[in-house]
């Protein structure tokens, strides 16, 4: 007697988080459709790190793949969380901004090109300080220019999460996809504890960190769009669906009056329970033009 072999789904699942930036980016693109631009063999490294005794990386921690997703022209730009916590330096920022600008140019010339940003980053690379900060400002400008033509889809998977100035870049995106392990916030808990005291934020309280910045919370309160398990195929499927859906009718970052009202309505006399925001804010923001009957 022979028994059929059943392989549990969790064994077949390919973890997205365990992949490095390059493999993550590749996993999202149509197979065989992509080429890497200014990859490690081009050796365009940071000019600032070696003189500070820090080993650079050949691609400066930014991977750019040009190709197709769901048959549509796409560029995927991935920050390597394993190198300097994915922080933005002069070169990595320039690669990202340039790729976005070229996607805009192609879109203006009739070849609509979407951008997918894999943001595993702590923000500005302090060893490049002002050039890192300006690079983020330039990336934000480039996102807004492209967004007039094509969606900019941000994926935050963990384990670094998306913090610092790059959280503003995420905030400007057309769609944000997060895993439960991922976190999204402007200031990390250590920085808040350092600047405002341990009463304000105990950075050793992991439950608190995820309750506020975690993927489940951000999606449930409506400031990110999808919660997806750490599964490369599932993440790729969601990215494809956003590419196909195209631009939302209104971007979340354009809804100033809505959010201004929400902030006005907050009781600031005490800390805010994140769970209450799931009820009061949840599910009322980005609506895709083509998604009928689904309010997100």
């Amino acid at each position, binding site marked *: 007697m022979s028994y059929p072999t059943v392989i549990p789904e969790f064994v077949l699942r390919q973890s997205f988080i365990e992949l490095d930036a390059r493999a993550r980016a590749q996993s999202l693109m149509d197979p065989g459709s992509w080429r890497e631009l200014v990859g490690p063999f081009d050796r365009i490294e940071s000019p600032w790190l070696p003189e500070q005794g820090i*080993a650079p990386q050949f691609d400066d921690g930014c991977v750019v793949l040009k190709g197709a997703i769901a048959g549509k022209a796409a560029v995927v730009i991935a920050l390597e969380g394993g190198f300097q916590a994915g922080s933005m330096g002069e070169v990595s920022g320039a690669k990202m901004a340039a790729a976005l600008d070229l996607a805009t140019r192609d879109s203006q010339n009739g070849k609509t090109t979407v951008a997918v940003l894999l943001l595993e980053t702590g923000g500005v690379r302090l060893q490049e300080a002002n050039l890192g900060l300006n690079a983020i400002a330039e990336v934000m400008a480039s996102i807004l220019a492209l967004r007039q033509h094509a969606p900019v889809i941000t994926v935050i998977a963990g384990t670094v999460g998306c913090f610092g100035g790059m959280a503003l870049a995420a905030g400007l995106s057309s769609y944000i996809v997060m895993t439960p392990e991922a976190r999204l916030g402007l200031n990390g808990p250590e920085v808040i504890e350092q600047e405002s005291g341990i009463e304000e934020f105990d950075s050793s309280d992991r439950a608190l960190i995820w309750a506020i910045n975690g993927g489940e919370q951000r999606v449930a309160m409506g400031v990110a769009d999808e919660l997806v398990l750490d599964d490369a195929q599932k993440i790729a499927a969601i990215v494809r669906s956003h590419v196909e859906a195209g631009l939302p009718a209104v971007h979340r970052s354009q809804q100033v009056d809505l959010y201004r009202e929400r902030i006005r309505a907050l009781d600031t006399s005490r800390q805010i329970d994140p769970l209450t925001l799931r009820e009061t804010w949840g599910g009322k923001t980005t609506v895709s033009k083509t998604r009928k009957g689904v309010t997100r």
Partner: protein
Amino acid sequence: MEQLKFEYPSAKRHVTKKAHVGVVGSGDMEVLMQPTETGSAYVSIQTSVNGFSSSWKAVMDRFFSKYDGAVRIDINDAGATPGSVMLRLEQAVEVIES
């Protein structure tokens, strides 16, 4: 920061592929391995951990005692152990010789 260079004139077997392995995290390194343009193998290492040039030479000598590909090897290192270095080199060779 240290820049280290080693040459292996007897590693002359022509190869055609190139490989990139690794991420420059703390205690880790990345390596580029590609066909050399000089006819024999040479190695360039950029490392943030100073004072280990003899250790690097020992690893490279051991690597090229088993491998004869005419490769150019470039490494960015942030403190990988000799064991990790050898592992990365072997991963790169797997791609080159596949």
